[in-house]
């Protein structure tokens, strides 16, 4: 009888599966051992809303859902270092930009009674119930990037303001360099709250301050690939496009490359590209004096400090523990600021 080898002989496959299973189990046990909660952490109960009751935090859970963004690694690194200065260990989630995964991870932390949770909700309404459960369990809940009804404190950014700063700067440039005329394309995002706020701030500020500039496109793009292909298409129809504004630096950088590939000189005086975030490639382009002229930037060190200090302030019972992290517009000539931001991102 001829044996049909669907795979290797079954004994080998069994051996492989046995080894794989054993290795996976051993790895899981080792990882579990590495992350086992310390006794001090479990005994540290903070009453988030009770001002005046001072508690010592030993653990903070930092839930930043957009793990695919470079900012995530920077924030985790800086926040871990900031926490370590106070003998606090920083826990993180791996939500991979998925709201369902985020909810699961947050529920796990609440049930494990992680004493302080700093969370950036992807869907604020959906997180309200989890935040309430956290407070009911005596935990500290800090909302990142907005406010919830149930929370101990929040860390605010005003994404609207970031968009507004960029829109105003671009409008002022259009007024000065193009006599208030020209063509603009917006690379936007309408899928999450952060994106909608940035988009609204950017478009409202620009159209209000530069009413003579034609808006020729509003395209969804948050990453450089999409920014590049959308900008290429817009440029095919409007080769005289002057301005591309992005809700992220990544998308705007794609637009920047599309313009260059269409033959625009990197220092063209009648072109303006701007984005938001303060990401390294964009900051370098601004510093080099190209037509990538502005970025509404957050300083990662400021955010990392807030991630640790706000829950500590709540635990210490301080009044008004919330924080507002400033967004600043970085433009050509802000060399010291650009260097500082690049150093934080390195």
């Amino acid at each position, binding site marked *: 009888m001829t044996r*049909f080898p*669907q*795979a290797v002989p079954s004994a080998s496959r069994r051996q492989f599966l046995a080894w794989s299973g054993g290795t996976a189990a051993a790895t899981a046990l080792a990882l579990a051992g590495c992350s086992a909660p310390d006794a001090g952490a479990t005994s540290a109960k903070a009453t988030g809303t009770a001002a005046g009751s001072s508690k010592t935090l030993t653990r903070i859970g930092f839930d930043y859902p957009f793990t*695919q963004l470079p900012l995530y690694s920077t924030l985790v690194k800086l926040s871990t270092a900031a926490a370590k200065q106070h003998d606090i260990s920083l826990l993180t989630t791996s939500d991979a930009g998925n709201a369902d995964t985020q909810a699961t991870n947050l529920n796990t932390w609440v049930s494990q009674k992680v004493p302080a949770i700093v969370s950036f909700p992807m869907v604020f309404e959906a997180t309200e119930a989890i935040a309430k459960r956290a407070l009911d369990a005596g935990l500290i809940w800090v909302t990142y990037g907005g406010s919830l009804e149930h929370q101990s404190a929040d860390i605010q950014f005003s994404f609207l303001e970031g968009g507004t700063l960029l829109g105003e700067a671009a409008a002022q440039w259009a007024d000065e360099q193009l006599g208030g005329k020209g063509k603009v394309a917006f690379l936007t995002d309408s899928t999450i709250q952060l994106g909608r706020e940035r988009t609204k701030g950017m478009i409202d500020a620009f159209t209000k301050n530069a009413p003579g500039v034609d808006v020729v*496109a509003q395209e969804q793009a948050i990453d450089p690939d999409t920014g590049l*292909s959308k900008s290429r298409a*817009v440029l095919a129809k409007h080769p005289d496009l002057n301005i591309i504004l992005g809700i992220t630096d990544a998308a705007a*950088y794609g637009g920047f490359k599309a313009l260059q590939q269409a033959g625009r000189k990197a220092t063209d005086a009648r072109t303006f590209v701007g984005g938001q975030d303060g990401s390294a*490639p964009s900051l370098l382009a601004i510093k080099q004096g190209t037509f990538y002229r502005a970025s509404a930037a957050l300083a990662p060190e400021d955010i990392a400090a807030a991630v640790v200090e706000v829950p500590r302030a709540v635990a210490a019972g301080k009044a008004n523990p919330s924080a507002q992290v400033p967004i600043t517009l970085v433009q050509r000539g802000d060399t010291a600021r650009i260097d500082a931001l690049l150093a934080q991102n390195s």
Partner: protein
Amino acid sequence: MTTATTALPTPRALAGGGLTAVRRNPLLMVLALMVLVFQLTTGSFLDAGNLRGIATDAATLAIVAVPLALLVISGYLDLSVGSTLALGGLVAGWLAGQQHQSPVVAVLGALAAGAAVGAVNGVLCCYLGLSAFIVTLGMLTAVRGLAQQLFPLPLSSFGSGFAWLGGSRIAGIDAPVFIAALVLLAGALFLALTPAGRHVFAIGVNREAAYLSGVNIRRTPFALFVVTGVAAALAGAIKASVLDSVVAGTSGAGFELTVLTAVLLGGVALTGGSGSVFGVLLGVLFLGCLQNGLTLLNVPTFWQQMAQGSALVAGAALAYFGPRLTR
């Protein structure tokens, strides 16, 4: 002697061949109709600059779609191409930008990384018989994690030498388009003219029968996994060169579904055993033209998503029912 008649087909034969091509690839008709509508509504769709943009955007998709199509024809699947693309771009960018290696070394490094991912997929699926769907889905996540762990921060400024890969022109054609054309040609010739190409179909139709016919049912799909990994990494290196930057978390995200869509739209059966490189080319062009046309029309975001989804379903339905209706 029949050489002359085969070399110079009559106009009637040409027309018949054209009709046959349309019957076999109904997507061709849909594509032509779509191009016509976009040209009439935008007035600039067929401009040379726009067509060049579509071709450049579609090039990386085609480079990965061809080997993936061969893999699907042989009855396997690779869902890890999006992460492999990111890894390839990062390795190439790191070598060119931070290690100051020559562009050739950078690209070879990327290809090696892609080959390694493909080899792991191939060993697990072809030699150990694990499910390609599960294995490559796992690799999609694992390779993305590895890429983010190795390169947590964006890489940029790879130098003018490396920019050649994505920005230069060869014989008047953009380098990525030229490379994609070579890949398409190689894929078509491989399928049509080589014994291994026929083995791909044989394995996809019935693996047991192929084995009993003396076909090595492990080696060919294994090689296709490796080639798919290499192609994805090459596409990543091209994208890194075009953008002069790579971000581990977002580069190539969702690419696996786009490329699989192009392959399936092109008439490749997910169950294996049938498909053509010409069909894949049509699938790639269909997606590229659709995306570009909707952007030119300035269609609002959510309407664009609805239109894209509807067009894909319509295209797939026509690809499925078309040949049956025209029989």
